[in-house]
């Protein structure tokens, strides 16, 4: 009994010494809203619809309304309704109604595209192709952020950014409409071993999705390619801190 007590006391003192060491160490807490959180490069957050930032199509939306993302989506949380670029209103094509018609909220989704009529009037070019996304909605309540939409997209229009603080007060406001998806994401994060750009490219997934990788490579971004090459050489595993 005495031996037990001495050993027990010794262990308790050792435990207390250990905790005391931690007492004097720096807290690891991240004061989140004030300080950015550290995330891994492959983190997938909120979607963003991109525009062309340079070249002949500068300023146009990348999305051509093909709805491949909606077709590929496992949870079917994407809704795309295509509109026709440059469709002359007088031809009487079913999709050539002035966009202001949709803008007034008469669309079948119950959710107005939220785009004022003047921007989307017939005859104006919104995307480089024949068609553009008249309505583009993602139900973030159903979305599981798998990133398949990104893989499916032939023009690299939709990407998953690293913005993750998506809490809101109503279900309806979590159905993201086109205008909100076009807004650049502002992730409040620090990406581990990245180029310092929180919106920078994600390294590709480990499993071979040839199409997705081809699409990935087709994007003229040398940084992306470098990441991919490094990954192929097997030097770019995700590292823990």
């Amino acid at each position, binding site marked *: 009994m005495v031996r037990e007590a001495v050993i027990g006391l010794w262990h308790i003192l050792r*435990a207390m010494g250990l905790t005391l060491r931690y007492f004097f*160490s720096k*807290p690891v807490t991240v004061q989140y809203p004030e300080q950015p959180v550290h995330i891994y490069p492959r983190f997938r957050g909120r979607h963003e619809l991109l525009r062309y930032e340079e070249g002949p199509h500068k300023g146009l939306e990348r999305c051509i309304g093909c709805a491949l993302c909606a077709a590929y989506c496992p949870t079917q949380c994407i809704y795309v309704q295509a509109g026709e670029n440059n469709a002359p209103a007088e031809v009487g094509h079913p999709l050539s109604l002035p966009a202001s018609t949709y803008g007034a909220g008469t669309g079948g989704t119950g959710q107005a595209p939220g785009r004022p009529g003047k921007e989307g009037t017939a005859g104006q070019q919104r995307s480089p192709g024949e068609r553009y996304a008249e309505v583009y909605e993602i139900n973030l309540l159903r979305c599981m952020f798998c990133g398949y939409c990104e893989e499916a997209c032939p023009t690299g229009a939709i990407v998953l950014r690293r913005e993750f603080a998506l809490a809101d007060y109503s279900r309806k406001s979590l159905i993201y409409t086109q205008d909100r998806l076009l807004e650049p994401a502002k992730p409040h994060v620090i990406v581990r071993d990245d180029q310092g750009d929180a919106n920078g490219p994600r390294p590709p997934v480990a499993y071979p999705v040839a199409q997705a990788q081809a699409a990935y490579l087709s994007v003229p971004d040398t940084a992306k390619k470098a990441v991919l090459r490094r990954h192929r050489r097997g030097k770019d595993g995700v590292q823990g801190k």
Partner: protein
Amino acid sequence: MDWVGDFWIPVVKAVLVVLALLIAGAYMTWGERKICARFQVRIGPNRAGPFGILQPLADAVKAIFKEEIIPSHVDKVIYVMAPGIFFAAVLLTFAVIPLGPEVSLFGRVVGLWIGDVNAGLLYLMAIAGLGSYGVVLGGWSSNNKYSLLGALRAAAQMISYELPMGIALLAVVLIVGSLNVRQIVDFQAGWPLIALQPIGFLLFLIAIIAENNRSPFDLAESENELISGFMTEYGGIKFALYFIAEYTAMVVNSAIVATVFLGGWKWPAVLSNLHPLLGVVLFLLKVLVVLFLYVWIRASVPRVRYDKFMKFCWKFMVPLALVNLAVTAVVVAVMAA
């Protein structure tokens, strides 16, 4: 009858002490959360005011405005009374603790204590024992199996720790030759009793942690298996009363340890003789050290299993306390001869 000296001064002192204890208990919750957080490499509360110092106020406001729920199956009178009994016992305990020497205030000589009781140590033990009634009655009146188990544990725990606690104090009484707390403090002008009674100090510390239902002896309210034990059915301000009483009890028990074993306000006499206020500061510092020890132990040691605790109390602490008492008695007798 001297109304000022015999009535008003004690009343004012009592009110001041109660207020100070309430604030100390409230801030002990903050202190524990802060210190515990640092032990776990966290920051702890820091949103309400600088360093979160308004956190106890925010918690109090929240608890007060919570809906007052009395479950239909409880024994209402005792259910409502139990937190009060607990809290009252905790507050009463402090009455005989001297904070400092006699000082002259406004032309009167005022002692920095509420009651100068001859059998002060006995009073401490008696009132500290009453605190368990709050726990036991609360658990029993809740009419809930978890609460009842918590109360049963508290009762069994009480009879286990009170014995070594009393015997450890008896050794102190033998050395000092008095039950008066002030005389115990005065005795420690040269050396604190922890130097003469290291084993007694350890036993008393363990017992007092058990009395406080503190980790590693928080068997009565173990969150994991008894979902807070005797407090399961309590909510709102009644829960807050239990909670704050527990933390006030920590402060009071630390004060007892500081007084009986760490020399109270007296030791080291070189410092406390300079100015009476310095003695008070010394006392408060010692209380803070013991309080830190409380949190430190909580952050380091997991909860003891129930039967192991009983075994530890009865088969180790009680015999050790008895041996300690016997050795002390022999030494005191030899020294006196």
